[in-house]
């Protein structure tokens, strides 16, 4: 769509342009060689490549400049592929637009300044917030690699929710057997220091050099570390808010958390100490419901099947009802587990989330009349039959979903991670970078990122560990050079920039009464620069003169009627 030869020829005539070439694959090795040869031959000091997107090949060409002995930032790219040839159909107009973009790049590159890459040393210690299965897995992995780990745990015990579980699905392994040896190792590990009953209120610093102040037993402790793993986990949903379930009013309506405790004690019984003959398990309590949480908590279905199996083994003649909305048996061996459970005389009843009383999609639990042989009745709209049915029950287990801790916001603020609408922490990229966050050096693992089972949490913990050990082994991290810089002569001290900075990279120098940018925290987003009322903040590589000259260049071709 673009007359490339013509463009190359005309660009060659522009002021300050020494040489203009057309080559099919400029990003290839011979293409780069061509640039290097030209730089040396013509003693060039700036280069413009007009080709694809800078997101793809800017680094490639910067490297070529560096190899030729030039500063890599003396380079500009004009994107005439995505912005021109792929999106236009008129050849003449497209060629004109390509030319305009290249002129803009040429005028801009004239104002480029050499910038130096900077690196900082990494503190090899790591802070792990949360002592659940994710936290202790990550801590052990890093500590075993010979690096120092601090675990900060809110409660007085390690193991988190895994410590409250009896058996794990689908292989019915004991959670205590999984956990106990690891906790013991953590407590005895020379490289691990655990702070119980402690929370992290504020983390200062930047990747490689974080700091925090903790209060333990009334004493202040200052910790220095290079990376942070956030493993604060989850909170079970409180079903009291769902009126129709009668939780808190009917004594034998219990949550899955309470049932786990019952299983750990080794006896399934009602509050009156009787063996329940009718046991109902209700799925999706607080999950997949517009009034509570719209998301799926992912683990409850399989835990419910685990309960059905455990109840069948403990009370062989019990009637077991599994009242589900949708059975989610994804993952290794889970579908098989579902099939197996179905063969153990468990009646699966599908409740309709679109119909029902008293609110959308919740079964209704009420006390049975005293002359019945059972204690409670669950009324549901059964989806597969289309009938409204009554289910007898002596014990009802509510499969409560997972939700974020109330103090998730505090943690997010302390370490500088963002949260989604459900108060779970957001990863850097949902597919390609699932454990890192937008703050370098801060990683999120386990259920604080979203509902998760043990294998997924452990996998995440180990993934984060690999990332951290990688940074530690490099010793240094490169930090962004296209940062903001304050001209202290012009700064009026209004602190507008501090309020708008999303990375907490600017602080106020009380002595000089000016703002100071921490160049290691700064990501060069430019928000402060545009907010500064006096023009005291300059974003490197995106200075006013560079941008204005580029605009001027683009507009320099006379505008013809459209």
């Amino acid at each position, binding site marked *: 769509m673009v007359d490339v030869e013509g463009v190359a020829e005309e660009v060659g005539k522009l002021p300050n342009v020494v040489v203009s070439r057309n080559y099919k694959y400029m990003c290839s090795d011979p293409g780069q060689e061509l640039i290097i040869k030209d730089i040396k031959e013509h003693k060039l000091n700036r280069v413009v490549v007009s080709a694809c997107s800078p997101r793809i090949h800017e680094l490639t060409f910067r490297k070529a400049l560096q190899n030729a002995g030039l500063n890599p930032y003396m380079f500009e790219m004009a994107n005439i592929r995505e912005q021109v040839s792929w999106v236009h159909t008129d050849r003449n107009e497209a060629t004109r637009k390509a030319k305009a973009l290249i002129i803009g790049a040429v005028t801009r590159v004239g104002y480029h300044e050499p910038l130096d890459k900077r690196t900082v040393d990494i503190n090899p210690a790591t802070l792990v917030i949360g002592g659940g299965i994710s936290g202790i897995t990550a801590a052990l992995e890093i500590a075993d690699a010979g690096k120092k780990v601090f675990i900060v745990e809110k409660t007085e015990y390690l193991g988190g929710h895994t410590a409250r579980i009896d058996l794990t699905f689908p292989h019915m392994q004991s959670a205590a057997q999984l956990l106990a040896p690891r906790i013991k190792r953590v407590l005895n590990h020379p490289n691990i220091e655990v702070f119980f009953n402690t929370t992290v209120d504020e983390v200062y610093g930047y990747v490689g050099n974080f700091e925090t102040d903790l209060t333990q037993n009334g004493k202040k402790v200052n910790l220095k570390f290079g990376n942070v793993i956030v493993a604060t986990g989850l909170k079970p949903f409180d079903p009291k808010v769902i009126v129709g379930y009668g939780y808190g009013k009917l004594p034998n309506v219990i949550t899955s958390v309470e049932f786990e405790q019952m299983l750990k004690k080794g006896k399934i019984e009602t509050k009156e100490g009787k063996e329940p003959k009718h046991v109902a398990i209700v799925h999706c309590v607080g999950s997949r419901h517009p009034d509570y949480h719209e998301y799926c908590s992912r683990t409850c279905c399989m835990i419910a099947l685990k309960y059905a199996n455990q109840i069948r083994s403990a009370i062989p003649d019990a009637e077991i009802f599994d009242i589900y909305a949708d059975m989610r048996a994804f993952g290794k061996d889970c579908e098989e587990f579902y099939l197996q459970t179905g063969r153990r005389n468990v009646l699966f009843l599908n409740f309709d989330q679109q119909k029902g009383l008293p609110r959308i999609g919740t079964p209704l639990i009420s006390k049975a009349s005293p002359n019945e042989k059972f204690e409670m009745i669950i009324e549901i709209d059964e989806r597969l039959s289309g009938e*409204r049915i009554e*289910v007898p029950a002596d014990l009802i287990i509510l499969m409560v979903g997972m939700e974020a801790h109330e103090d998730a916001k505090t943690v997010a603020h302390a370490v500088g991670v963002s949260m989604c609408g459900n108060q779970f922490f957001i990863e850097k990229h949902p597919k390609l970078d699932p454990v890192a966050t937008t703050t370098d050096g801060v990683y999120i693992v386990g259920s604080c990122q979203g509902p998760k089972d043990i294998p997924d949490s452990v996998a995440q913990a180990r993934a984060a560990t690999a990332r951290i050990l990688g940074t530690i082994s490099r010793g240094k991290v490169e930090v962004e050079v296209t940062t903001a810089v304050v001209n202290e002569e012009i700064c009026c001290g209004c602190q507008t920039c501090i309020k708008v900075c999303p990375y907490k990279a600017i602080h106020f120098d009380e002595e000089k009464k000016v703002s100071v940018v921490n160049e290691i925290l700064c990501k060069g987003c430019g928000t402060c620069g545009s907010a500064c009322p006096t023009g005291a903040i300059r974003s490197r590589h995106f200075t006013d003169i560079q941008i204005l000259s580029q605009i001027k260049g683009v507009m320099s071709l006379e505008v013809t009627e459209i």
Partner: protein
Amino acid sequence: MSSRVDPNFKYTLKGFGKGDWNECYHCGNCTATCPLSEDGFLFPRKGVRAIQMGLKDKLAGYLDPWLCYYCGECSKTCPRDANPGELMMTLRRYLTSVYDWTGFSGRLYKSMKAHIAVVIFLFLSVITVFLILADFSIPLGTTEEGEKIVQLNAFAPHEFISTIDHILLGILSFFLLTNILNMFIKVVIKDKSIRVPIYMYFIQMWEGIFHFATQARFSKCEGKRTYWFIHWFCMSSYVIMFAMIIFFLAWFQTDNVYPITHPQRWLGYYVTIGLIFGSVYFLIGRFRKNREMFKFSHHSDWIFLILLFLLAFTGILIHIFRVSGLPLATYIAYMVHLAVEVPMVVTFVAFSKWSHLAYRPMGIFFANCKKAVLRKQYKMQVSPAF
């Protein structure tokens, strides 16, 4: 009104055929493939779910098994080999016991030993009665034309046999009619969702009779023409035989051997061929399991077919011995014939398999009444007769 769930219902149902329907995961292929299933009367999947959940009250009002002719398409398409077709047979037996207020039906269905014991007891009772009351030494008699004939009416006077028949008919009719009334209460009266106005019963009545006579719903089941014919032939033979024995025994049971052109002999041959052909066809089918509907056989199926065969077979023997002029052999064959007939009628007419002859047309009749209401009230797409 909601129904109570009973997961142990499958153990109750087991005695009537297939109890555990756990294989079914409700894909709905069976209902989709069924040529007879329609809006308002969807089967067989709904019935499977009702059984899984043990909704006894709902099941008691189901008409599904009376509307199905077991072509077996559902079982063939079932991806889980759950045999939904067999559901219909199981439910048919179960519902027969539900309609039966005496509880006798349930006992016959649930226990093969009980059923056989009742049959043998009645068989021996009839033999005993004959041995005590009848005179086996009555010789050949002579007609006005001077031909030698077996004096069957002297051995067993048709007035006497007819009286016994009528007494038996009265008792069994009482049970069958009260069972049908029970069915009517469970199926129509208790179904609060559809109110059938009285005039509707009169409008729809002829269709019940039409279906009783023709079994025309079969025509919707694919590839079932042969099966329909044999089933219908067998049924009509039985009905004709029944009518002749109950109402026209004096005309049917004669000492004179009429010429081959006489209608008495035609009807006799028709009935005999129908019963022999039908019972042998079904027995061989059930033995070889060559069709979907023959794959599962309940003991009531076997007992019914064997008695039916024996009935027809002894009927042929009576005829042959009579025509051949062998008095003693005729008397013995006649005795055995009745000894087979009595247990067959007593156990099957009101309490077991044979009762479907009454329940099916009644079921279609009730369904048609309901369908007419559905069409009128809800503008539902339900076909009238079929």
